[in-house]
């Protein structure tokens, strides 16, 4: 592990820079389809500008957005692979290195609990002062250690929602609620077109975890019937890119439904990810 430590730090740092600066190919495909289909000239201009920005960011390895985001990590563990404290240290150091290389926006808040709430402790001037969220672990089929890094911006966090839905033994009731939340949140976001990330679970923690995993597993070229229905119905609201009207309020929906409890309630977590999200990159360690 010791001799491998620096190699892991470098891989994680490089992956974080990719997450903050690069669109995956399926996302570029989604934008090209949206540009071709959009009839509203202002909406089309916004979509073209966002894709042009993505091409510039990828070329320069620079931030897609000045809100470079909070690192969220998903670690997949294969059959014979071990997660040690040293590995977690290497991942953490790699995140810090990557934030400096990107560079990430220095938006870590300093101070005690009260200072961090009211922001009176000042800003850490170091990009690496932005700590990652707790790592989510899950099993994977391949015998590898695979790390996904996602960069979460503040706008979707303001407009996201995790709450209970009484399903009345009808899936359409839950979908109706998701569409209603999404229309409201997308219209307020200001950074559409969105990709809707949805988790449905048994607790707030589980639903938010599924919402995160939905962004890891989602693909713009592979959409389920429920995902297509949510996307179509939100797009009918004529919110459009940046809220300037048009058909492209939502590029796709990434939805993950977990195990459910025998109960009349489902916990739904919705994040209206912005025009650049999911900002994600993946590496095998």
């Amino acid at each position, binding site marked *: 592990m010791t001799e491998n430590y620096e190699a892991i730090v470098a891989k994680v740092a490089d992956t974080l820079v990719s997450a903050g*600066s690069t669109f995956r190919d399926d996302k570029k495909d989604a934008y090209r389809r949206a540009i071709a289909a959009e009839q509203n000239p*202002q909406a089309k*201009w*916004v979509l073209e*500008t*966002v894709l*042009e*920005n*993505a091409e*510039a*960011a990828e070329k*320069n390895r*620079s*931030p*897609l*957005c*000045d*809100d*470079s985001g909070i690192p969220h990590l998903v670690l997949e563990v294969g059959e014979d692979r071990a997660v040690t404290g040293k590995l977690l240290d290497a991942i953490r150091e790699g995140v810090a290195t990557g934030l400096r290389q*990107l*560079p*990430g*926006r*220095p*938006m870590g808040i300093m101070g005690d609990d009260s200072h961090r709430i009211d*922001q009176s402790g*000042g*800003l850490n*001037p170091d*990009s690496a002062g932005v700590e990652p969220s707790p790592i989510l672990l899950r099993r994977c089929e391949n015998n590898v250690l695979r790390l996904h890094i996602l960069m979460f911006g503040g*706008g979707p966090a*303001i407009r996201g929602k995790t709450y209970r839905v009484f399903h009345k033994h009808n899936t359409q009731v839950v979908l109706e609620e998701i569409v209603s939340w999404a229309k409201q949140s997308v*219209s*307020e*976001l*200001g*950074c559409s077109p969105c990709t809707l990330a949805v988790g449905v679970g048994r607790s707030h923690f589980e639903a938010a975890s599924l919402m995160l995993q939905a962004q890891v597993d989602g693909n713009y070229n592979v959409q389920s019937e429920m995902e297509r229905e949510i996307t179509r119905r939100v797009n009918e609201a004529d919110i459009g890119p*940046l*809220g*300037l*009207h048009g058909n492209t309020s939502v590029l796709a929906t990434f939805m993950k439904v977990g195990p459910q409890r025998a109960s009349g309630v489902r916990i739904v977590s919705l994040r209206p990810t*912005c*025009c*650049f999200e999911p900002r994600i990159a993946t590496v095998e360690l």
Partner: protein
Amino acid sequence: MAIQLTTPISEAAAEALQVGDTVEISGYILCGRDAVLPKVLKMIEDGTAGELGVDLRGQVIFHTAVSPAGVGPTSSNKLEIESSISPLSAAGIKLHLGKGALHQETIEALDKYNAVYAVIPPVTALLEAKTTERKVLAFPELGMEALHLIKVDKYPAIIGAAHGRSIYD
């Protein structure tokens, strides 16, 4: 064809802008958001805004932080930001640059002072190439949220509110 706007923006140029116009903004512009705008308003109230060293008349204020990651609009309908639009317009700001829908009373205040609101896509990588100078004007303790002055070349935007109308209607 985009309308070219260079700071300071004249009363006539502001008057001519209509909702939906595409514009390109060049020259020196101010940058500030939630943390610093209330402090700038306090300076205006106290009659000390002259200490900023910039004439606010005809100016643009971009609702953004300025950091090593670049610039990009934050939501202009955040409480401290949107509530600054009317008094800053009264002080001479001609164009508020950000994103998101504004409330009707703010749109009416813009019209009252012959000012406009423009929406800029959050295209940080493209804006970086169009930003040639940047410096802190006031409140450096706020870091990226300090009041900044930057020089820009053809920032792209769409007029989102003018003459009492909004593009979000």
